[in-house]
């Protein structure tokens, strides 16, 4: 740099001026090149959507028909946002089987996830033995009230989402 030149000299003044102009022009030239021929990297969100990766962790979805009420997800959850209740089937009921062959011994009476509390860490989905609790790719679920963020996966309207939400 121009430290050898005395700071009050005319030469120093013009050297400073020249370096200011030249470096600014150099930077502006880089920006200017972006006017043409550079691919646009942003997307216009509501119309264009980026395809999410296979492992993307969005809203949780529980396939209640497959759930064996083992409560492992509720135990693994670091923020305790999964509420499960179940009761025993009466004696002599023919037990249904989950997708991996495990008999469903308990009748699931409540499966609620408070999505407002959920931190999307994915720990609950890794412990699920029947893989009924999964992260869906659904990320547009804002609500007007905080109660609306509680999803009851036994409610008929949520069950009706199954085909839309569950990963293929």
């Amino acid at each position, binding site marked *: 740099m121009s430290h050898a030149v005395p700071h009050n000299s005319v030469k120093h003044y013009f050297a400073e001026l020249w370096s200011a102009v030249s*470096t600014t022009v150099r930077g502006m030239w880089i920006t200017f090149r972006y006017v043409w021929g550079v691919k646009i*990297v942003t997307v216009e969100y509501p119309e264009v959507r980026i395809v999410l990766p296979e492992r993307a962790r969005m809203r949780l979805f529980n396939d209640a028909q497959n759930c064996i009420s083992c409560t492992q997800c509720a135990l693994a959850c670091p923020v305790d946002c999964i509420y499960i209740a179940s009761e025993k089937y009466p004696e002599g009921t023919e037990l249904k089987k989950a997708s991996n062959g495990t008999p469903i011994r308990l009748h699931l009476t409540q499966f609620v996830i408070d999505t407002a509390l959920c931190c999307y860490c994915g720990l609950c989905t890794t412990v699920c033995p029947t893989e009924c609790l999964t992260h869906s790719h659904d990320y547009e679920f804002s609500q007007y009230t905080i109660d609306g963020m509680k999803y009851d996966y036994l409610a008929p309207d949520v069950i009706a989402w199954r085909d839309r939400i569950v990963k293929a």
Partner: protein
Amino acid sequence: MQNKWDIDGHAEPHTVNAETEKMKSDLLTLNMGPQHPATHGVLRVEIKTDSEIVAHAIPHLGYLHRCMEKHSENLDYRGVIPFVDRLDYLASMSMEWTYVAAVEKMLGTEVPRRAELLRIMTVELQRIASHLMAFGTYALDLGSFSPFLYAFDEREKILRLFEEVSGARLLYNYIWIGGVWNDWTDEQLQRVGDFCDAFEPETDKYHALVSVNKIFLKRTVDVGILSVQDCFDYGATGPVLRGSGYQWDLRRNMPYSLYPEFEFDVPVGTGEHGTVGDCWNRYIVRMREVKESLKIIRQVLKKIEPGSVMGKVPKVLKLPKGEVYVRHECPRGELGIHLVSEGGDSKEPYRLKVKSPCFTHVSMLPLMAPGQMVADFVATIGSIDIVLGEVDR
């Protein structure tokens, strides 16, 4: 620096004249933040100014306090990982690895070689992403907007890779006790290599845009100077310490994991444009570290071999009685995790103490601020690159 403003020791005014004089010399209290873009989060700095000169700066912390340490005492060891993610949310991988390394040290787990290499790769990628963020926001602080966009363009590519492999963009929960969650496919590793090749010329663009720019130099050179002795006194680490010209990198000086196998340099501030330890040196150290990280990633890609990514870990984690302190080199400095376990049937940590580098650096603000212009103070805050999630915890 000698502080010539003595806020507490004003003499009693005896006459009207003396009172007027006192009013003239009084300091104006100004609150910077907590909703101030230049404070990088919710930091409030109470500054006392004498016209345009900062006389005192007192950082007020705690706006992002989430009781993380107390929370983790009621969580199982795996459940803490999402919480340590949220410490330094711009470098979650590094945070996870430090915590996981502490647990593994107590368990005595053998981590498979592939998992360890993948950890090094993700952490170095994360370091690049974090330094890009630091570069972009620092340029933004000093009034140039477009470097921010260029930096985010490249950072986005890294985050996309992380999203594909872990499922989340910022709070990954990817590095697990015993290994890593998911394996990278060959195609993804190939893309990491491609990214390295494409990214290397981009850094030259950043230097041309910002590092040598005269306006940037005028704003950062000889501003916020920290001597090595100051850094030692306060316990500064990471780019702040290296910017002062002291070569200290835990990856090199106290190697952990597989770092001894890798060749890389530890860049230090050299003071081309002014004094060593000023804002420009801290900035340029980060930019040079990005290149070193690229070197490490390329070596990882050469060394990597197929294998398992998860070691043998019991399903229910119970740690033996004892305590451990692990520190790792994170993008912002040295993160330390002090983990205490009761032993017995306990599935939770007895105590988890986090030693945060950003907290140390924030406490250096009162040292650097006196005598600076207010605008230079903004440059100083930006140059230490703090993340408030880590300061407040």
